[in-house]
């Protein structure tokens, strides 16, 4: 056998963690990235990284509770063994990053400090100022640089992954990539290829994601036959600063400190907001949720802001949807003391002082919970079996996916500060699996004609694009139209008729893409053709998102269809309340039976997604309803607990934890 070689695509947290561990195992890594790896999108993460720690443990916290919070937060849509394994690894991962020199904030005594994040009662989140993602990424970047000097890693920065190369049995044997400077193509032979290429926010035009988050690598794997899982689950953050180029996060703490959200009652009132009298302002969150006011849960805030702009037409601006987030009633001194850092970000990029002028904010696409479907082997203790070549493997043998581009860890909704953990965890955990994969699918000299043919196909595609000078479509304008459409119909509030229409529109846009003209026909740093290519690969994934959303007739996590929402209890009289709660629970159980399934999209002939559904392994923690903020939650919970108790009593006789569902 030749010297082992693994190709890693993407140098964010997942790709770097994987590369570091592989190099340590003595495996040579080719690391391909669109940008120098130190510039990957992971740098944008601010909040922190979750794990059980010495302090929370003494307050009753356990890895099991972290696992429970994660699956409950994800509305039970993720297979439980990998999530359990991740929670178990949490403390070790944070310790490791600490050893690598991450400047975590400290307590007076010199221990790591932790803060509390959404979806948990414990202070599990370690953080390094407001730049935790950047600090974690740098620590891994430094270790990989060290291995590069030792000759164990070869970096291919400013290279684009174009396609996996499959042999006649359908096993992945390598990939074709393109040098973004010289535009040369190159085949990389590899024992396994690992995609760690991140999210796909650019399908939505502007998002909180970086310009490299086109999702093109994942789309190319999907078009080559890899399944896509849970595509319709996209996390939208309620408050971001709309910019002409991107949407930048505005922390929830602005509302926590008394910020009020409003729009003028008169659509697009052109007056200076400070001149608009109270009576002509609509404080819609306070009006609709008198109890919670501006601090309603994130998903509700997101939905209401979106709704008032799109369906009621009350956006502050006409062409750019936004509402006011107003802090001007709070004394300057208080704002500087409590919110200084985040207000500076607004000032820096908007050139406006939010202490004297209401901020303009709008929800923004933030994270892809869905991604490439990946496999796992369940271990005896209900976790993931270390070293199994099935772990993180896509439906194409020899092709793996880790980090944000897999669908494995966050189900229908991701908890804050869990993404940094899932990225590092999947990167470290997959390394021994890759080593095993090599032994399983030993290469023994692949015919070079396989790679030659693959390179030739990419060269032809490239040449065809360069020849389209007479086209009538502008790729940048088309991208804006795609982003606008996806943002309108497939983010916060989803309606079947809109989704169906949008699907047709995306198909038309894809046709129009074939008539795109490139304005640069050169073969040197041609960003124009690279972008056009990436745009072409956005349509297949956009269709996966739209079709998955269209077919899923329920509300789960980030996927909200008003037509299928389950309102709270209306009755007041105790017996009627009780009866209504029984019916509510019946409906919940029926919905669980029908829809607690992963959406699996396979790229069919002609590029249309074939959708099927797979059962989710919920054998460790039985699904239960999320009742936060619902009217009558207490009575529903009472009924639910009684049903659970009855079920456990029946099952408890045999001593099992429930019926184990086989992993797919």
């Amino acid at each position: 056998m030749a010297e082992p070689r693994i190709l890693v695509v993407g140098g964010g947290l997942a790709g770097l963690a994987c590369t570091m561990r592989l190099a340590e195992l003595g495996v040579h890594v080719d690391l391909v990235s669109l940008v120098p790896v130190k510039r990957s999108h992971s740098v944008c993460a601010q909040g922190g990284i979750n794990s059980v720690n010495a302090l929370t443990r003494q307050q009753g916290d356990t890895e099991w509770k972290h696992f429970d919070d994660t699956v409950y937060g994800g509305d039970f849509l993720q297979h439980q063994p990998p999530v359990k394994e991740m929670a178990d690894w949490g403390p070790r991962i944070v310790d490791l990053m600490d050893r690598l020199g991450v400047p975590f904030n400290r307590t007076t005594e010199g221990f790591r400090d932790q803060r509390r994040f959404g979806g948990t009662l414990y202070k599990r989140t370690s953080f390094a100022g407001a730049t935790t993602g950047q600090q974690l990424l740098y620590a891994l970047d430094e270790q990989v640089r060290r291995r590069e000097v030792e000759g164990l890693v070869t970096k291919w920065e400013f290279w684009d992954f174009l396609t996996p190369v499959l042999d006649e049995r359908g096993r992945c044997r390598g990939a074709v990539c393109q040098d973004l400077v010289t535009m040369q193509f190159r085949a990389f032979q590899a024992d396994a290829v690992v995609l760690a290429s991140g999210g796909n926010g650019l399908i939505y035009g502007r998002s909180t994601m970086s310009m490299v988050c086109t999702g093109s690598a994942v789309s190319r794997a999907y078009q080559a036959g890899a399944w896509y899982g849970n595509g319709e689950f996209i996390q939208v953050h309620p408050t971001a600063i709309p910019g002409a180029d991107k949407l930048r996060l505005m922390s929830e703490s602005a509302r926590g400190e008394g910020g009020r959200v409003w729009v003028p009652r008169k659509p697009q009132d052109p007056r200076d907001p400070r001149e608009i009298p109270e009576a002509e302002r609509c404080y819609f969150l306070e009006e609709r949720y008198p109890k919670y006011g501006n601090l309603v849960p994130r998903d509700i805030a997101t939905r209401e802001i979106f709704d008032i702009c799109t369906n009621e037409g009350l956006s502050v601006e006409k062409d750019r949807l936004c509402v006011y987030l107003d802090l001007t009633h709070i004394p300057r001194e208080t704002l500087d003391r409590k919110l200084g850092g985040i207000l500076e970000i607004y000032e820096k990029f908007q050139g406006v002082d939010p202490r004297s002028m209401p901020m303009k904010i709008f929800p923004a696409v933030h994270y892809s919970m869905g991604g490439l479907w990946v496999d796992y082997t369940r271990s005896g203790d209900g976790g993931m079996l270390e070293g199994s070549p099935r772990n993180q493997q896509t439906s194409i043998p020899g092709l793996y996916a880790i980090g944000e581009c897999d669908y494995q860890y966050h189900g229908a909704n991701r908890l804050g500060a869990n993404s940094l953990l899932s990225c590092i965890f999947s990167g470290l955990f997959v390394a021994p699996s890759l080593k095993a994969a090599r032994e399983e699918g030993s290469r023994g000299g692949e015919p070079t004609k396989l790679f030659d043919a693959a390179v030739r196909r990419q060269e032809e595609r490239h040449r065809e694009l360069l020849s389209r000078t007479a086209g009538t479509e502008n790729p940048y304008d088309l991208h804006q139209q795609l982003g606008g459409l996806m943002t309108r119909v497939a983010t916060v509030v989803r309606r079947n008729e809109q989704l169906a229409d949008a699907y047709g529109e995306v198909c038309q846009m894809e046709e129009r893409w074939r008539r795109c003209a490139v304005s640069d026909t050169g073969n040197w740093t041609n960003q124009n053709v690279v972008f056009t290519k990436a745009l072409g690969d956005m349509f297949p994934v956009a269709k996966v998102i739209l079709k998955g959303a269209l077919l899923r007739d329920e509300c789960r996590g980030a996927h909200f269809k008003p037509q299928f929402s389950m309102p709270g209890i209306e009755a007041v009289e105790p017996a009627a309340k009780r009866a209504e709660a029984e019916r509510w629970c019946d409906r919940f159980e029926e919905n669980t039976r029908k829809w607690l399934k992963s959406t699996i999209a396979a790229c069919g002939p002609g590029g249309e997604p074939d959708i099927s559904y797979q059962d989710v392994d919920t054998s460790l923690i039985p699904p239960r309803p999320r009742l936060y903020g619902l009217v009558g939650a207490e009575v529903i919970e009472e009924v639910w607990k009684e049903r659970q108790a009855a079920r456990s009593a029946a099952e408890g006789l045999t001593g099992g934890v429930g019926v184990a569902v086989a992993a797919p």
Partner: protein
Amino acid sequence: MIRAIDGDALRTGDGRSRQAAPLVRVRILRQDVAGGESYWERFEVPHEPNMNVISLLQKIAAAARTQDGRRVAPVAWDCSCLEEVCGSCTMLINGRTRMACSALVDKLLEENGGEVELRPMSKFPVVRDLVVDRRRLFRSLERVQAWVPVDDSYDHGPGPRISPEQQQDAYPLSECISCGCCLEACPQFTKIEPVLRDGESDADFEARRRQAFDAAFLGAHAISQAMLFNSHPTGGMIADERMESLTGRGGIQICGNAQNCVAVCPKRIPLTRSIARAGRAATVWAIKKLFDR
């Protein structure tokens, strides 16, 4: 001009029923290939509120026409995060080295008489237009071994205890985004642009480039990283090796104390403090070496 921009005609963005937006004039120093001739081209972009240089460039790419309507290839530039944390989009904007994402057009127009001027960084070889090759910057990080030399990535419990003061000292240094602003502004950091010789293999060319990098000035960013890792309890275990690099060829002695680096750093990293510390450490280390002989 700026007052007109702030008018309500633009606030609604409804261009059809109102006057067309004023145009932003942009002058860009272009270059088609590495080592090629450079030339100026002018563009005009409709103004939008809160525009930054990135959105100017996005619109120029989409239109791909000069001011006089001539069709040209889109201007090439580097960017990624657009929130000043990835370090990609450094360029000379109105003559000053800074990040394109946080350079707001209205402010630029005010400081430069109604025009925005973009040039590539001058201390790195131009790849194309505003894209430069900053490999040397990362090579400097290798030269000073900017990492914590851990045994392995397996579980050995937590890292060393660190006081809050130590953390607050290290954190700003760790925010360096490798943008290269400090190098662009440094009078001692000069451009290295080796040219492929006839018959030279890629490997030989690469080795020659590496040699040239290693003989030249490290730069403020790398000196500061060396100080960051020397101050870490585990990182400091190879402090002597870092001092060897810092005092060798292209080391700290090249610094002329112009202090431009700290003035242009977009992350406000106390670079001159790091350099001063490195200078003191170099003196101590030289004396120690003398006695150890």
